[in-house]
């Protein structure tokens, strides 16, 4: 091999490292194709970069790769890195004993690789967190926080944040995630995937506990980051979270733009459907029923093409939202989606929470189960599950989730106490349209609306929002004869004779 070729390979290795940090994994893999055949001094580093890339996508494949290229790592530094990467891959596949064993082997090499102590400490702290054995004052973590490498330091702060969150200290979690972002943004060399995860984590927890500054910081970092397809899941979840925060703070238009972005970047069709459902919900609460129905139709069209059996738990939450939004419009279809969700299992939700056996995992599961039971008409089971969810979220200050659970309980039990609780949690978000919505819902209902069937209520709202009979027929999948008959009854209830008259009357009564 000529010197020029060797120089080219060195440049290629650097390029692969950059691509790895920038979360352009296909590019890194392309560069490293055949790297096991490179000159030995380059190959021992190249195979490890490739292993790092693989771990982020497919941990078992990474373990296979590491085993196959074992002979290529010759220097102590490379062997040390191999042990760390192997341990990390094992912890990702939840083989904690094997992971601990690899970290012990790395520890023995520390004498020859003294600069590796911070990295090893981070991996050990991460493993302890996954084993639910870590506390924020974990010694390994303390060492990792002093890593002179900003990438290592940032990731250590993020880890401490997650550990604090698992322990219920959400303020500390927000503070640490903010610090992680500060460190990452202070340098040109940062790991996009780590930052993306931190943004998502910060946005989520800040929104849940109604910490405006945390959400703002996440939004700021979101706008700055060069997102790639390889971190699409983090981006999608972060932008949805920012959307919900905008909505809860009285910015429905902004929420809709963010959900629009979420639909555009959704990593899977199920998630794309979910983003349209988000828009449908916001439009409905904002009293633009026509828009809401439109987004619901879009979501349905996408959902019909999804192989739900092949989706992961988080994606399947779209089924729950579909069921909830469809329930007043098309009860049988809603029950079909609820049953589909129940059929594929209700395990979810957030892989980070699952990884750390966080009790909020149970909370999300219970809430979802409650909504499904509610849709299926099992009021007792729904109440039981929703109360369990509320009991988890309310004490830890997860305002949004507690509000949702309380609101659902108010619907199921018709008990004003739950409506009050829902309004209380909603009030944590100043300007929330939901607070207004719930207040309006609590008002004595209009007698004309009260006299209509649930289906007629939906029809009436859609009709005074501007949908003509033809559009209603399409929208509600009913014949024109049925629609005409139902609309005639609605006109009679409001004592009007035209669509315009109905709209005027609804506006006059303050229900449109």
């Amino acid at each position, binding site marked *: 091999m000529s010197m020029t070729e060797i120089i080219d390979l060195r440049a290629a290795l650097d390029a692969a490292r950059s691509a790895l940090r920038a979360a352009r994994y296909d590019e890194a893999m392309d560069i490293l194709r055949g790297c096991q055949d490179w000159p030995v001094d380059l190959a021992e580093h190249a195979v490890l970069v490739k292993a790092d890339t693989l771990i982020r996508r497919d941990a078992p494949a990474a373990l296979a790769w590491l085993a196959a290229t074992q002979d290529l790592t010759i220097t102590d530094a490379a062997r040390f890195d191999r042990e760390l990467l192997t341990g990390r891959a094992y912890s990702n596949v939840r083989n904690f004993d094997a992971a601990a064993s690899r970290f012990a082997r790395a520890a023995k090499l520390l004498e020859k690789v003294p600069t590796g102590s911070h990295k090893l400490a981070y991996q050990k702290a991460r493993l302890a967190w996954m084993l639910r054995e870590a506390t924020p004052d974990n010694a390994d973590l303390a060492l990792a926080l002093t890593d002179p490498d900003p990438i290592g330091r940032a990731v250590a702060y993020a880890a401490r944040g997650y550990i604090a969150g698992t322990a219920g200290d959400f303020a500390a979690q927000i503070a640490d995630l903010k610090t992680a972002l500060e460190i990452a943004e202070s340098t040109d060399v940062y790991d996009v995937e780590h930052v993306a995860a931190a943004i998502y984590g910060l946005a989520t927890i800040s929104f849940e506990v109604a910490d405006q500054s945390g959400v703002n910081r996440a939004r700021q970092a979101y706008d700055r980051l060069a997102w790639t397809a390889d971190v699409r899941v983090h981006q999608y979840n972060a932008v949805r979270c920012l959307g919900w925060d905008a909505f809860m703070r009285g*910015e*429905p*238009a*902004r929420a*809709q*733009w963010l959900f*629009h972005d979420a639909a555009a970047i959704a990593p899977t069709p199920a998630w794309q459907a979910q983003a349209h459902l988000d828009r449908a919900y*916001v*439009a409905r609460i*904002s009293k*633009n029923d*026509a*828009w809401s*129905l*439109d987004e*619901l*139709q*879009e979501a349905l*069209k996408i959902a019909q093409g999804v192989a739900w059996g092949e989706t992961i738990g988080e994606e399947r939450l779209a089924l729950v939202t579909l069921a909830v939004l469809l329930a007043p419009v098309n009860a049988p279809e809603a029950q079909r989606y609820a049953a589909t969700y129940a059929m594929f299992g209700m395990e979810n939700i957030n892989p980070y929470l699952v990884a750390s056996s966080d009790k909020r995992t149970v909370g999300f599961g219970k809430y979802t189960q409650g909504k499904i039971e509610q849709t299926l008409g099992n009021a007792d089971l729904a109440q039981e599950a929703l109360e369990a969810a509320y009991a988890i979220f309310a004490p830890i200050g997860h305002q949004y989730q507690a509000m949702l659970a309380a609101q659902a309980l108010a619907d199921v039990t018709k008990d004003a106490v739950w409506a009050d609780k829902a309004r209380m949690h909603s009030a944590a978000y100043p300007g929330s349209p939901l607070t207004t919505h719930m207040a309006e819902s609590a008002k004595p209902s209009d007698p004309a609306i009260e006299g209509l069937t649930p289906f007629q209520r939906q029809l009436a709202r859609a009709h005074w*929002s*501007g*949908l003509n009979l033809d*559009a209603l027929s*399409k*929208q509600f999948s009913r014949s024109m004869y049925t629609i005409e008959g139902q609309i005639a009854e609605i006109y009679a209830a409001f004592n009007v004779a035209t669509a315009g008259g109905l709209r005027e009357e609804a*506006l006059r009564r303050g229900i449109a």
Partner: protein
Amino acid sequence: MIIGVGAIALLALITVGVLIFRVSALSSSMKTESSAADDANERRYTLLEAIPDGVYIIDADERLTHMNEEAERLLRSEPGAFVGRAIESILDPLASDLIPEIRLARQQREIISRVVYFRATGWWVEIRIKPGAKETVIYLRDVTVRKSAEAKLVESESRLRLLMDQVPAVLWSADRLGCFASLSGAGLPSLGIRESDLLGKSCASFLGAEDALTSLSTVFEGTPVEFESRRRDRWLRHQVEPLRGADGRVIGAVGVSLDITEIKDTQRRLEAMARRDALTGLPNRLALEELLSAAIMGGQQEREGTFSAVLFVDLDRFKTINDTLGHRAGDEVLRIAAERMRSSIGARDVIARQGGDEFIVVLTSTTSPDDVGAVAARILRRFAEPIMLDGHQLFVGASIGAALSPQHGTTAEELIKNADAAMYRVKAGGRGTFAFYEASMDEAAHDRLALEAELRVALQTDGLRLLFQPIIDVPTGRIMGAEALIRWSHRTRGELAPDQFIPLAEESGLIIDITKWVLRRACAFAATVRTTRPDFRVSVNFSARDLREANLVETVEAELAHAGLDPDGLEVEVTENVFLEDESIERLKDLRNLGVRIAVDDFGIAYNSLAYVKRLPITSLKIDKSFMHDVMADRFDQAIVKAIVTLGLTLGLHVIAEGVETEAQWYFMKELGCGQAQGFHFSRAIESTAIQAMFDVPPSFVSLSKSA
């Protein structure tokens, strides 16, 4: 500000109407921000109202300053409701949702346009964001109609593409020189053609040299053509039309060439099927005539001294088999007969089914009439062997007529007709044999046809007569009823008995009308008699053919009603010697349920007499007259008659002795306890008026009427 605008709007609405209100409202709104209202702007806004597209304008602060009527319709807004509001507060896909793009357009100072689809309403709206120095104009155009048309066009194109991809056709165009200018379609690969092989080449290479030349010249004259050609093992159908330039002149041709090989194959199969008799697998009449014509022609051309002969073979007693054992058995007999004939002829000879139980054998090259006779004899020998079918041993004979070419005819039609005439002569002469055609035979065949035509006329012109043979109550000697018997007074042949024309009527289907004719008169007669003799009944004979008529029961019911006759006054006689299908038995049961009596005629001579008694809803048994003839001398006949009478009495049936001609027979029957009798001893068949007269005569004189 919104309240201020609202107040002014109300005033404006009252005074000058909606349009002026819009301008005033806008104008007033602007005045609150800037005291120098711009007349030019006002004119501009007024103009916007006239635009059919939706238009709204936002200022630098993203507040809506104007919205025309169409925009309000698209945003489902009340008039003026959005003016003055921040666009972000107008939560709608056509307002708040456009803000990111509006900002981008402003920032980049570029027009942004896109089309958005609303799935729930099916609307398509084209959005155009045009940034200005201070204001941004948003145009909204409802393009639902256009987009729907486009969607239909896309659908139509995709259908066409699908058609192109799936249908084995080649679409092509040619220039005025007759060379291919383009070729496409799914037919190309299946025909083993590459586009590049034919482009620029003469169409003759694909369309077939002669066809292409003549067809294309016709097309270039302006007339579309359609023709078929063969390309290797494939058949193609070409439809070619002139291709015209802008000035209307023919500048070339466009064509669709469809691979119709499969269609052709199917056609061939269907044609073959149309020429074959489905039951026997033999050529049918259509094929026969062609084969025969070819044989006649071939005979003329081949060698001197040979000729063709036609044998017309008609099965004897086939109708009886069909009537007694059913159609399925009849079909099987036909198959066996065909096979026997096939094995009796040479390899070059042809056998075809003419129809029914008639077959034609064509001997293609015989040298003498003796050869023909030998073949006929072979066939007859084969028919002498019994046919075993479902445990029955059946004897099916054949009658054969032969015609020779050219002396008995030079055309297929003539030969068949003459062989048929010869066959009829055989039938008339006792069946089971063979005869050559003779000129005199034509007359017999003509006779038969003429008779059928005359019968038809007789039926319509009352050329038929209905007589009645009295049925006597044996114990009292009184007339109980009468059997209706038809006669045909033929203008040249004299009076014809039923057996001389009823078989002909059954063959031709005329029997249905004849039965109806009889029924009407018989019922009328019985109704008249019953006014004075309420127990009188009339008997009418029904053939097996009558019983197959689906509406028989309705017909009887109608005739009874027409005559005003109680059903009890009618007795239907069914000959025992016919096979009755299930449907016919059901019809008899229906008739019985109606109240009509059912009698079995000629009882005792068929092998399944007792089965009849069990299966049919019988009210009477009529002992066949053959038993009566020798009853006084033959102990067997006596035993049979006794048995029938006993059977009838046991089952509670009326027993009627037919053919009672002597006093001895009369007393014999009386001794046996037979209830009723008819025959020449009492009276032959007589006119209805004569019967009426007999009622006034004492019973002891009844027998005198036999000489009446």
